[in-house]
């Protein structure tokens, strides 16, 4: 068991989510930064679908009640095992009773913690991902215990490609309604530097500034994580993993999978530009 001593800002259990339930209106959920969660699992030789902890900015203080191995990936926040600083993307041996705590945030906004064999919390509709209106809680709570299978066996890492430094742009395909916009709006989307507003969470990221308003009618259509919607007032909203499955605003862009992961590492006041890339 992992015992939660302090819950941190927003810590949840995530895996690959519930994409098969999109037709029933269920948000996909799952790790916000898919690549980082995937790497944490690879380092321990886990399955891709194994559940990990998603840690947002202020980390939780955890106590491990049985021996295991852990690995962390994603943003870069200083962290300690029994007050000893530790490194990212390497297996870390954990003995019974050891505690994990946090220090300063150097970069990024989400860190993933994998445990050898994955977290074995309750599975609902094929996934362990916390998600609004599906799981009874959305974040870890103090005193909670999360089960895993204890092991002392040295993990055999699976390879993963090294990631390049992010260049400050989010790559996107033109969305299905992109061509209905005016030149001015196209220009604004491609040239503005945008800032992540304080309205950013697992459901969506709202960004500033607004672009020109519109009065397009939009029938309800399917959307995915990374769909950039434009409200009639000109606000751009980027849907994320816990977002709705259908939307009633024009879909002006669709972020690439990589860019959805990059966005997941951004937080309030971070800046970026869009780069529209050709479709296939």
């Amino acid at each position, binding site marked *: 068991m992992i015992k939660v001593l302090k819950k941190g800002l927003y810590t949840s259990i995530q895996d690959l989510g519930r994409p*098969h339930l999109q*037709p029933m209106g269920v948000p996909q959920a799952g790790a916000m930064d898919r690549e980082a969660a995937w790497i944490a699992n690879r380092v321990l030789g886990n399955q891709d679908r194994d559940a990990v902890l998603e840690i947002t900015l202020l980390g939780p203080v955890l106590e491990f009640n049985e021996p295991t191995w852990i690995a962390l990936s994603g943003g870069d926040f200083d962290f300690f095992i029994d007050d000893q600083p530790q490194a990212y993307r390497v297996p870390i041996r954990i003995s019974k009773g050891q505690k994990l705590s946090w220090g300063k945030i150097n970069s990024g906004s989400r860190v993933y913690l994998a445990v050898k064999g994955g977290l074995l919390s309750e599975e609902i509709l094929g996934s362990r991902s916390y998600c609004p*209106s599906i799981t009874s809680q959305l974040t870890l709570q103090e005193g909670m215990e999360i089960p895993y299978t204890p092991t002392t066996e040295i993990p055999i890492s699976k390879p993963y490609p090294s990631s390049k430094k992010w260049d400050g742009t989010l790559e996107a395909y033109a969305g299905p309604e992109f061509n209905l916009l005016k030149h001015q709006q196209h220009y604004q989307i491609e040239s503005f530097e945008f800032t992540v507003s304080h309205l950013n969470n697992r459901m969506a990221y709202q960004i500033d500034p607004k672009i020109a308003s519109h009065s397009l009618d939009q029938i*309800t259509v399917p959307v995915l994580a990374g769909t950039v919607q434009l409200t009639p007032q000109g606000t751009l909203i980027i849907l994320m993993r816990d977002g709705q499955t*259908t939307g009633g605003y024009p879909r002006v862009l669709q972020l690439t999978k990589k860019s959805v992961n990059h966005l997941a590492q951004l937080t309030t006041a971070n800046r970026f530009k869009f780069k529209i890339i050709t479709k296939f």
Partner: protein
Amino acid sequence: MTHFDLTYEAFCEDALIIQWPKRIEEAILFDISAFKIGLKALFPSAIFTASYNELMLRFPESISNFKDLIRQLEAAYASREKTTYKPHLIQIPVCYEDSFGLDLEEVCAHLKMDSKELIRLHSQTMYTVYAMGFLPGFMYLGGLPKNLHHPRKTHPRPKVPKGAVGLAGMQTGIYPNESPGGWQIIGNTPLNLFNRTQWPPTFVEVGDKIQFVPIGKDEYNLIRIQVETELYKVQKKELPND
């Protein structure tokens, strides 16, 4: 069988959308449903999300060649057999009595009709499920009679009860779970529109037909017990396609 002019468009690395003409029309929705059944057999691992005039196909891996896939889809649409889509009619019991119809009195006053007439109009119509979204198990229903169109509440409720049946503009619908919301609430269903502990978690799918059946409070309580003890069987039957 009408063949519509479809457009096929890459959406992202692993998804593609098929678009029908941008109209809200039952013939379009049923054509989507019919095509979806055929495509499910062709691509068993894909996820199909249908709504109004669009069908999204999402694959477990990135699509290696969109042009080939689109060619395959066009061929499947052109050569599909004359499969007429037969929608299911699902009957959903609703209690419109005072403790459930939170806004019933106000709505009746606004629409200038008595509650009997409102209940009759609301429950005699067969609605069509055009999309699911907003909340797990939430249905976008088309077909609300014009004289029941009613604006949303000026101040949304912080908590609309689970099962609440409401009106909003030209729509009617059911809150599958407690949620904030601005719909005018006229009744409540004892059924679970979404049950995360059973498979499938919902008994509705895009393309189904819905009819509300007025019930009294005693029957509501009885059905509620049957639902909780898993004895209740949802009334669902195949309709002939006209």
